[in-house]
């Protein structure tokens, strides 16, 4: 349905709209070939994954189309669609009765599931008002280096691809506050590039969560059992109608959409929404000590709330970028602070507080979580036209006990790529295998996870449109949890067992060659080798490993190639 509509937009603009509309089309078509192997340069004996024979090889593709209608630069409308979004080449659903003669490829994603060929990801409008710009709709959210909010557009990573992208249903207004003040004061506004934005996001209208299930308690505040007739008595917590609450009620299953009432959308109590504030100075090409310099600095604040779960979380993110005479500095730091009763991981209950009701919200404190999450990335280096050196250091706080009342772990955004293997493949696989589908929100998806790292990078540009990049990554655990990152005796966390001996998670060496030709065609050849330590649970998650000095170690190798047409 959407495809014909899009085709109509693209092919018949002159007949459908007045002449002062302009059509714009951005996007790309990319293909990426991926080889994942155990051991340097691959092995035919053991696969990347323990239950796999030989190397893993696949090719994936994505067509991104972003058409727009622009009315005199005063009002614009955009769509963003992904076609064949990370779809693997070939017929992967056995559509052909004889595989050898298969002809029509399917739309199978990298998760092995058939998906919609055409996805409408974003749609938004943008228009000028006398004192600024307003943008409304389902739109990308991006800030700074993209540790927290990352649009996931284009080809902005040194290695790897963007797969996700932050998208919000948002209404946001941006303005130049100094210019407004100067105008009110009757002065000509200076072109000071200071911007302020305020917006509102609606994240959820009505969550389908496990939260409701755990709200059954068996005792009143004075310790007496809750019986029929008590103010706290809830028949949903008494499935056998014996007059007593039970923990073994049917009320603890996931709530599904059939459970909603007909006016669910009107309920304000369960909505999750947030206010967004941003202030940024964007000085590009400014004069500094006789040279041109770039200076970007700003702060981004988000206040996220849900009344029903007494959730009130403050997210703060600061960003700085400086480039002057080749000296390059860039950094982003973020923190997430606040309280919530909304994180309902299976089994992640604070048993010490179970049955105790919060005086203000009336919620069972077993669900209480105190968010205290930190993350940052800092880069420093020297950049010239033909070469550059950059030292990068980053951190994502971890959580040694996700089931307690302290919620301290969150990976950096998965579209902020660091290397090709350690975070992107290995830890992504480990977190998915250990948290399983039931706690998908805790997967790293390739983002920097529960660790701090260093990542020096060297880039050489021997000629126009050619880049050769070398990088080396080493990562150390922040708070090992004993399941995804194993504990060592000297770790400053409480662990059930301490089988690990290494201090680091491992290291990775990457090399890439990039070339742009015909102005729009991007070619990239990337390879990486990672050696991981006994910090990882290879055997329990099914990752290939070898043994050195009686300890398991991982050897992972990848060779990847991208060819893309960008427009």
């Amino acid at each position, binding site marked *: 349905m959407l495809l014909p509509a899009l085709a109509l937009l693209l092919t018949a603009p002159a007949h459908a709209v007045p002449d002062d509309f302009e059509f714009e089309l951005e996007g790309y078509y990319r293909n990426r070939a991926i080889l994942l192997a155990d051991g340097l340069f691959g092995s035919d004996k053991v696969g990347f994954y323990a239950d796999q024979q030989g190397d893993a090889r696949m090719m994936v593709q994505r067509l991104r189309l972003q058409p727009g209608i622009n009315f005199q630069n005063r009002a614009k409308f955009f769509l963003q669609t992904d076609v064949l979004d990370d779809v693997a080449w070939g017929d992967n659903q056995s559509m052909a009765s004889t595989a050898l003669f298969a002809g029509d490829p399917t739309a199978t994603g990298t998760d092995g599931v058939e998906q919609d060929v055409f996805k409408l990801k974003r749609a938004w409008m943008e228009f000028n008002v006398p004192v600024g710009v307003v943008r409304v709709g389902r739109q990308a959210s991006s800030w700074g280096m993209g540790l927290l909010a990352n649009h996931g557009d284009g080809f902005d990573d040194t290695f790897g691809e963007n797969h996700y992208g932050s998208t919000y249903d948002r209404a946001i207004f941006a303005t130049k506050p100094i210019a407004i003040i100067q105008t009110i004061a009757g002065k000509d506004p200076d072109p000071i590039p200071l911007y302020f934005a305020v917006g509102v996001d609606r994240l959820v209208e009505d969550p389908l969560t496990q939260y409701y299930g755990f709200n059954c308690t068996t005792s009143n505040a004075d310790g007496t059992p809750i019986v029929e007739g008590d103010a706290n008595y809830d028949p949903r917590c008494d499935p056998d109608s014996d007059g007593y609450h039970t923990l073994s009620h049917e009320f603890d299953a996931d709530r599904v959409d059939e459970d909603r009432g007909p006016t669910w959308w009107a309920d304000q109590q369960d909505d999750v929404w947030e206010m967004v504030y941003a202030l940024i100075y964007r000085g590009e090409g400014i004069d500094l000590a006789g040279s041109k310099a770039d200076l970007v600095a700003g702060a981004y604040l988000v206040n996220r709330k849900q009344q029903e779960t007494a959730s009130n979380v403050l997210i703060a993110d600061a960003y700085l970028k400086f480039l002057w005479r080749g000296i390059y500095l860039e950094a982003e730091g973020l923190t997430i602070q606040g309280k919530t009763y909304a994180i309902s991981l299976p089994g992640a209950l604070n*048993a010490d507080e179970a049955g105790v009701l919060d005086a203000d919200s009336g919620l069972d404190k077993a669900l209480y979580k105190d968010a205290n999450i930190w993350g940052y990335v800092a880069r420093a280096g020297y950049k010239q036209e033909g070469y550059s050196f950059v030292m990068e250091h980053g951190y994502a706080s971890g959580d040694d006990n996700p089931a307690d009342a302290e919620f301290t772990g969150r990976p950096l955004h998965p579209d902020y790529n660091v290397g090709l293997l350690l975070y992107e493949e290995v830890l992504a696989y480990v977190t998915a295998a250990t948290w399983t589908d039931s706690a998908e929100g805790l997967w790293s998806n390739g983002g920097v996870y529960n660790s701090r790292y260093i990542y020096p990078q060297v880039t050489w540009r021997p000629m126009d449109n050619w880049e050769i990049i070398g990088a080396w990554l080493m990562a150390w655990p922040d708070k090992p949890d004993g399941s995804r990152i194993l504990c060592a005796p000297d770790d400053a966390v409480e662990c059930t067992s301490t089988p690990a001996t290494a201090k680091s998670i491992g290291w990775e060496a990457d090399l890439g060659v990039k070339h742009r030709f015909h102005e729009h065609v991007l070619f990239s050849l990337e390879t990486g080798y990672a050696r991981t330590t006994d910090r990882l649970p290879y055997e329990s998650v099914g990752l290939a490993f070898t043994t050195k000095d009686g300890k398991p170690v991982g050897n992972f190798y990848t060779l990847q190639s991208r060819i893309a047409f960008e427009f």
Partner: protein
Amino acid sequence: MSTITMLALLLAGCGDKDGGDDTGLTGDGGTGDGGTGDGGTGGPSIEDFINVTDPYAGDIDSCCDLVGAESDCWNGANWISHTPDPNLQVASALNGDILDFETGDPVADATLDLWFENDPTVGAPDYSVVGDGDGYVTSTFYTCKPVAYKVSTDPALDATVDTYELNQIEPYTDGTIVTEFNSVSSTTYAIIPSLLGVSPDGDKGTIAGTAYDCGGQPIEGAQIVVKDAETGAIPESLVVKYFVDEFPNRNQPYTSADGLWVAINVPEGNWVVELYVADPAGGHTLIGKSPAYIFPESILISNIYTGFEDGKRYPDICLL
């Protein structure tokens, strides 16, 4: 704990009810008092697992009153042994449901293997049947006879882990047996260690179950340990954790009101699961045992009943 203290506890619990054998000591091999580990040198000691000091909550005193208890009274040395009426151990038709252990949802297309001699180590099962898409199976089963079963699904789908249960005893009926069989999903198998901060070894297995008191209710304040069935050694890799509100909890040091426990990273082989509670003098009393056999990367559901050393507590209707 001294044997006198232990004896006093046992006397208070059972001895004065039936005048039975008051000389019994706890445990096998002298380990019931929380003394030195019997697992050989260098391995974990029993104190690593049995160290509860809080009093238990449950009935461990009235097991002497159980119907059909053959011994004069359970006192820690003389375990209760139920003898079922052989006339009631008859083959009957079975209508069963294979359900997910965690969610209670039907498990589609699962294979149910039955060992009528209650021993899955002998090899091929006595009966094997594949359930339908709603987890429904029809088969032959026995009343009043402990039966071992295994539930599995297509390994290629990786949807479940092989789930064993010993001592499934159905009450006598002259009609069709209607019962349920448990299957543990791969998700549950992975998420429990995740929440507990444990990494399960692929060549080892998991034992989980409920600790029951004499009244058949979950017992709170008990601890379990897994020992080699022959040597009494505690496996070095063993991790034991307990549940709260039916969810695994890494900080819970003993069974909570739900009585649930889990033993992770148990090597393949024959084991005995022992159940202890604290005694008032600061020692520990062995109150129940159950044999277990672990297959790699599988889960065994094994409940422990106070007063029993074989895990076979028959329904009253089955007893002589």
